[in-house]
């Protein structure tokens, strides 16, 4: 895991491709992980076929939360909004290629939770979105 951590996580953390804030946007949502203060805000634009055309995140937090946001957004560009609604925990873990304990899992899944709460248009982001 040593090297994976270094290669995947730290690279995307240090040099994210999708950092930013889209204004205007079609979807937006923000949430924090109460246990560690990680914060992620995601903005999305969709095309006329309801596919994700652009995505950006901003926020702060640990390498895992920020890198997984970057990896997640990279992976959904061009995907139909409907498909994004059904992404799950394993999807993110596959992107990261890491086995994580329960605490770091929350960091890794924060961006997926924010993304799904945004596309579902929910008022809040319950943990059940990523279980």
């Amino acid at each position: 895991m040593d090297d994976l951590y270094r290669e995947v996580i730290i690279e995307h953390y240090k040099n994210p491709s999708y950092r930013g804030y889209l204004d205007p946007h079609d979807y937006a949502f923000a949430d924090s992980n109460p246990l560690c203060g990680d914060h992620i805000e995601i903005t999305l634009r969709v095309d006329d076929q309801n596919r994700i055309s652009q995505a950006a995140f901003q926020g702060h937090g640990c390498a895992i939360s920020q890198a997984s946001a970057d990896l997640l957004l990279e992976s959904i560009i061009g995907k139909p909004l409907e498909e994004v609604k059904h992404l799950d925990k394993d999807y993110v873990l596959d992107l990261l290629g890491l086995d994580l304990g329960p605490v770091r899992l929350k960091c890794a899944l924060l961006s997926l939770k924010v993304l799904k709460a945004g596309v579902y248009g929910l008022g809040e982001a319950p943990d059940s979105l990523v279980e």
Partner: protein
Amino acid sequence: MTFDVTQIRADFPILQREVRPGVPVVYLDSTATAQKPLAVIQAMDDYYRRSNANIHRGVHTLAEEATALYEQAREKIARFINAPSARQIIYTRNTTESINLVAYSWARANLQPGDLVILTEMEHHSNLVPWHMLAMERDIRLEFIPVTENGLLDLEAYHKLLEQTPKLVAFTHMSNVLGTINPAAEIIRLAHQAGAVTLLDGAQSVPHFAVDVQALEVDFLAFSAHKMCGPTGIGVLYGKADLLEAMPPFLGGGDMIREVKLRSFKPNALPHKFEAGTPAIAEAIGFGAAIDYLSRVGMKNIAAHEHEITQYTLERLEEIPGVKLFGPSAEHKGGVAAFTLEGVHPHDVAQILDQDGIAVRAGHHCAQPLHEKFHIPATSRASFYLYSTKEEVDRLVDGIYKVKKYFG
């Protein structure tokens, strides 16, 4: 698994104990607290030797192991009572705290002066005093389903009480004195028809037979680990998700919060909202091991075994002149036999039995109003669990004859 009581007894180190040299223990006090199988003792021992750490907030290996073990236990408990989700399992200290949690959080948010709470005359103090305190503070009305002469709830009287549209019906699934197993599903169904929320005191039912919260449709269920082969210091409140979600927090502190500012806080999601501070981590893990153990033996097997022992006990005790048994016949009854012996105080019965290693309890068993109803200050009580045997009942009977000789 076939049920073999000799094999089961070998799992419980304390049952090998001699109370005094040559006097093996005859433990007939499982209603007060159950003995613990080796698997439970070792799960906690292992935890302290290998994985001890504070949970939820830790990134390091020990903290992650501890968190995983703690939360796995919650999943086991959820499955054991067929809860829809583990987040409906709130860890508390015991049944008593579980009931107080409902009284402080749900009831204080939902009950107004003049509102009616229905209890029964056979409640344990744990399901009386929290409502006394609320009644004093809030002017809540309390009414009681009466207990009939043969130890059953008077359901006709219950029907009448329901006409007064109670807000809450809180009652014991099984009496810790009479042994009566109450028709919980029916009582809950009628309460719901009347618009009331229900709280089931499962301290004596969850340990002894399969309890399915979804089949019962119960709103709240309270029980204690220590009465079901688990450790002291941990119990559970189960609640329906919408009720728990809507309830204000009870104890404030670490872990139950989502965010804290200097002058305000946001509560955490379920179940953490109700678990403030460092919880009973080792105890949760021990509770999980107890659930595994009981599931392996099988709740059906346990209930059948206890039924057989109880029936035998009632037969043998009824033979003894001067013994008066309380509670219904074996068909309505769990593994409890409370009795008086004419002319001898129950404390003296228990003390003289103890000379032969026989452990029974004497007193009001935290059910003073029930004893008052039957015009006795105390009873002696023998109670059983999966490890109890007919030979132990025989020793009890011999012991009672000895008491009679003393006081004869």
